[in-house]
């Protein structure tokens, strides 16, 4: 699988509204680090949503992790989502589950044994410096801590592709630094492809990356 994401002429809208994305094309190779930037409301999150199948394109072709979106079945979509690690803008942590259980979610879905799930959750929570809050519930954590838990969850099952929607928006410097280091580490050490939607690309990232700019529903590659 040369390309992890292959999108051509995507046209995406919410319901019957006017399309937000009118022509988005991108080709992302394995182990690439990609940024999509653009103004607020330009449709950056819409693109991410279409990549994990929350929204489906009206026109155009889309292939993610070797799975084509044309007439995709729910079982294929579930399979695709198990290849992905998604970091949502609003964290999407399960309130009635502890931090540890939240991190274990993709592993439980993947059918791993409890001991593997626990071991991996502990390892990642140590990485995000939240091992001491393992038994806390999401509502007991700050926004930055919740995002770090979401980050640990996205990495738990060693995904092929990480999709991060504004992962550091509204976060303090320390939490932002932890998140960027984790994303960088995932690319460098695990060979994970990373796609981040953000307002600003951090100046101190220190890795090669590909940059797309979204404007007027069209995705432009910035050279």
């Amino acid at each position, binding site marked *: 699988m040369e390309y992890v994401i292959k999108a051509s002429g995507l046209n995406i809208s919410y319901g019957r509204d006017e399309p937000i994305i009118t022509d988005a094309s991108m080709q992302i190779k394995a182990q690439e680090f990609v940024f999509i930037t653009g103004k607020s409301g330009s449709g950056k999150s819409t693109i991410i949503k279409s990549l994990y199948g929350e929204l489906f394109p009206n026109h155009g072709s889309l292939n993610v992790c070797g799975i084509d979106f044309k007439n995709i079945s729910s079982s294929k979509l579930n399979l695709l989502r198990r290849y992905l690690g998604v970091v949502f803008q609003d964290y999407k942590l399960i309130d009635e589950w502890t931090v540890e259980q939240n991190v274990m979610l993709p592993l439980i*879905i993947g059918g791993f044994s409890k001991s593997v799930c626990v071991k991996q959750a502990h390892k990642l929570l140590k990485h995000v410096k939240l091992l001491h809050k393992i038994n806390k519930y999401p509502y007991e954590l700050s926004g930055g801590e919740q995002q770090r838990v979401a980050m640990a969850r996205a990495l738990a099952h060693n995904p092929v592709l990480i999709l991060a929607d504004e992962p550091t928006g509204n976060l303090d410097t320390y939490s932002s630094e932890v998140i960027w280091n984790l994303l960088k580490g995932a690319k460098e050490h695990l060979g994970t492809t990373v796609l981040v939607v953000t307002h600003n690309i951090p100046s101190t990232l220190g890795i090669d990356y590909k940059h797309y700019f979204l404007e007027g529903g069209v995705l432009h590659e910035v050279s």
Partner: protein
Amino acid sequence: MRSVSSHFSIMISVFVLLFSFQFTNVIKSIVNDYATKIVNDYAIVVVSSNELKEDELKKQIPEIESISEISSKKILDRLKNDMSSKNLALLQVALPKFYSLKLESIPNKKRIEVIKQKLLGITSITRIETFAKTHEKMFKMFLLLQSMVYIFAFFVAFVAVLLIFKQIRIWTYEHNRRMSIMTLFGASFFMKSAMLYRMTLVDSLLSSIAVCALYTIAPKLSIVQAYAAELDIMLPEFNLLVEGGTLVGASIAFALIAVTIVSRKIGRV
């Protein structure tokens, strides 16, 4: 507290549903038992100038179970004081034969009339008493009672089903966020609905055990037995293996179907 009451709303509804289902079975059994009792008590009296042969009668009227002659000795004994022995002997010779015809099942009014006409077709038979009115009235009353119980049970069960679906809907909405997050990580339908299945199954199972316990214990209570004896009805014994198994199986099947329908309808993400 809210969680406990939500469990009770499923448990009580399933209990009512299973209770009404089993109650119709009990009523059916009681009515059938009573019908047998009526059949045993019921007989057609036939007066014939000649002796009647059971085989020949059965050929014409298949529902005849048995035929027995009613002895005229009692009538003659009563007349002993008023008549001379010579006249009594003459009367004994001239007296027709009385028969009691027992049937296999309770015939309806129409069928009784058909039986009557068939019997009258036999030349030796001079008179028939069917007691149709008394028998019809009692049996109809029992059938009416059974129908009323069926209708009542149907409405109770219908309301119970609505309440169960409503509670599962509430649970599905309560867990919708968790289910949608799980969906975004590729959880299958059954995995994300596992909690709903577990809650509904446990509640249904507890209810079915409670219904089984009630129907096992209730007929053994002295107050219930005394009441049944007063009404001259026999309460059927609860077969834990067959009837209990049916109730538990039905409750599990119903829980699975209800959760699948509701969460498929609401939980689409």
